[in-house]
């Protein structure tokens, strides 16, 4: 069996001196959709932030290999250029910078880092329009400031739009489904499913089973108290839906 795209071994990490991840082991193969579920405070967001390289998270032990490289040794922008994308739980507003500029700047920064030629404004616009059409989003999106004045659902859809434009190899969705109405959920799921082409890997972090009705995972992992407490297939998610996380809560 070939090496998985993402392999996490005994990952321990602290926030403000408090250990949150207490030895995570997880492998996600190219083409796989892995769901990570867990109660609040179990370390789900810490895991995604550590993988994306956010400051303020101190890795104390373990390793993360991505595509044969030491992920933890890379700057956030290097990870991005190498194909790691995180859809934020709370997307950030950047007033005065329109979506089109932001997304094209990001795309070209990544392309430049990979030694590819930049995409010009016309080609970019063409691709952006196609993508928006597919995601049932209005073209006016491109002219609006990044996330400024967006509703919660619009912000999440913008994350999906950016993901579609940047074409990552590993996408981490940090509670992308929280706060979405059913239409937005469906569109988000459509965007995520469009990424499933056998070569990319997706890590879907969620509290609820709901999104998984639309994005059917290949594997489901329960994160509890900083460790993977159980792994299984889709059935595990359904079981959690019925029984809740009580069995995984610290006594």
């Amino acid at each position, binding site marked *: 069996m070939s090496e998985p795209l993402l392999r996490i071994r005994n990952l321990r990490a602290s926030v403000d001196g408090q250990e949150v991840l207490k030895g995570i082991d997880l492998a996600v193969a190219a083409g796989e959709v892995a769901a990570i579920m867990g109660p609040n405070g179990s370390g789900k967001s810490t895991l995604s932030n550590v993988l*994306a*390289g*956010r*400051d*303020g998270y101190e890795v104390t032990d373990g390793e993360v290999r991505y595509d044969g490289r030491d992920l933890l040794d890379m*700057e*956030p*922008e290097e*990870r*991005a*250029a190498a194909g790691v*994308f*995180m859809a*934020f739980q*709370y*997307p*950030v*507003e*950047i*007033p*005065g*910078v329109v979506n089109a*500029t*932001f*997304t094209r*700047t*990001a*795309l070209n*920064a*990544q392309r430049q*880092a990979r030694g590819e030629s930049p995409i010009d404004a016309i080609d970019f616009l063409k691709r952006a329009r196609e993508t928006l059409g597919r995601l049932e989003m209005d073209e006016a999106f491109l002219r609006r*400031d*990044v996330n400024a004045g967006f509703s919660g659902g619009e912000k999440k859809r913008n994350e999906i739009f*950016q993901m579609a434009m*940047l074409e990552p190899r590993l996408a981490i969705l940090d509670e992308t489904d929280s706060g979405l109405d059913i239409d937005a959920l469906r569109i988000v799921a459509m965007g995520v499913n469009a990424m499933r082409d056998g070569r990319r890997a997706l890590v879907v972090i969620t509290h609820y089973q709901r999104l998984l009705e639309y994005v059917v995972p290949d594997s489901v992992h329960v994160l509890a108290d900083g460790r993977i407490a159980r792994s299984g297939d889709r059935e595990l998610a359904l079981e959690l839906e019925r029984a809740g996380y009580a069995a995984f809560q610290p006594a």
Partner: protein
Amino acid sequence: MSPLRETVETVERASGEYRYGFVTEIDEDRAPTGLNEEIVRFISAKKDEPDWLLEWRLKAFRMWLGLEDREPRWANVHFPKIDFQDACYYAAPKQEGDGPASLDEVDPELLRTYEKLGIPLREQEVLAGVAGAGNVAVDAVFDSVSVATTFQDKLAEMGVIFCPISEAVRDHPELVRKYLGSVVPQGDNFYAALNSAVFSDGSFVYVPKGVHCPMELSTYFRINARGTGQFERTLIIADEGSRVSYLEGCTAPQRDENQLHAAVVELVALKDAEIKYSTVQNWYPGDADGKGGIYNFVTKRGACRGADSKISWTQVETGSAITWKYPSVLLQGDRSIGEFYSVAISNLRQQADTGTKMIHLGRDTRSTIISKGISAGRGQQTYRGLVRVQPKADGARNFTQCDSLLIGDTCGGHTVPYIDVRHPGAEVAHEATTSRISDAQLFYCRQRGLDPEEAVSLIVNGFCREVLQQLPMEFAVEAQKLLGISLEGAVG
């Protein structure tokens, strides 16, 4: 020239330092150090000026003496006392006989300097469509004198006068005499009095009745000589129903000493006339320890003299060690409009105290102030603005928005608005915000693939967009790049 320039710029940008810090080796003609009546006479004689102007200068000099030790002290800027007797008040590239009659007679070393700076002096190239040259008429001022003005003939066909002010004194004395000092009087303030006594060169623009000036007019100021100040004087008159857009750019060599730049700019808009004045100021800011850099003490004021006239100031201030500058508008004509759009950056140890004054005198006058201050490093940034509504200004309205952006925790941003309303019906609105580039914004950008400097540049450009949009297209692009360069090293 263009690909070469691009290479030079790329290399300089990569080095992350002030790009315009080089010195041009050229013979200079200098006044003796110090300031007294003899120096004023020396400058006037160098320019072969008429008696009335010499008298005007001497009057200003005496006023300045009266103001001695009366430098403005209210600004939030701190620097050692300037010894005005320890500076040189006139320096010019040496030339034989009369001034250059055409660009071919300009010292090639000077032309190379302007080429290096990206200033299209060679109108032949512009006409030949050389890429990047742009359709802009340029007046280039090197230290104390104007070295070349382009497109004069083409402008003259439409009756537009665009020339060095020294030339205007000779060729259009009636206009100069009528308007010089009519907006900024000689004794207006300490630095204006100094400028009035020793001003050397600058641009003169007159746009006749009903003419819309067909191209951007631009003056490029370069301080080269050591130990000199630059005291330029610019006068722009837009006659009834005319329009003009004017841009100034500035750079200086990188030196350890501080150099003084004390300019006066006067704008006069008559009935129905419109003047748009844009500045991209990139004087050498000094180093990270605050050594060197330009002291930029400037008086800029426009008078909307006629009804329905409009004056709009746009400034992008990225350079100088110290900036003291308040481009203002006197709204005299009924329904006249004053605008002030400003982006000012203080990085390293730069200090900027800048803003505007909008004085409402006529009826139904309107003013808009949009100020974006950015502080990084150990920079200190102050917005200082006055909105005054006089008793006869029925229906006056003002809107002011002052936003400050802080990068890091060793800089400062300050807002000092003065509102002086003497009419019960005036509408004056003031909004102010202070924000930081948050770690969350930076991380969001980095997660998408931008390195920290690209991220800051993008966020800052977004913050300034409302102002940058006011700039003529080709300069807006330059200004955007400049903002990024000015903030290099601002994040760790």
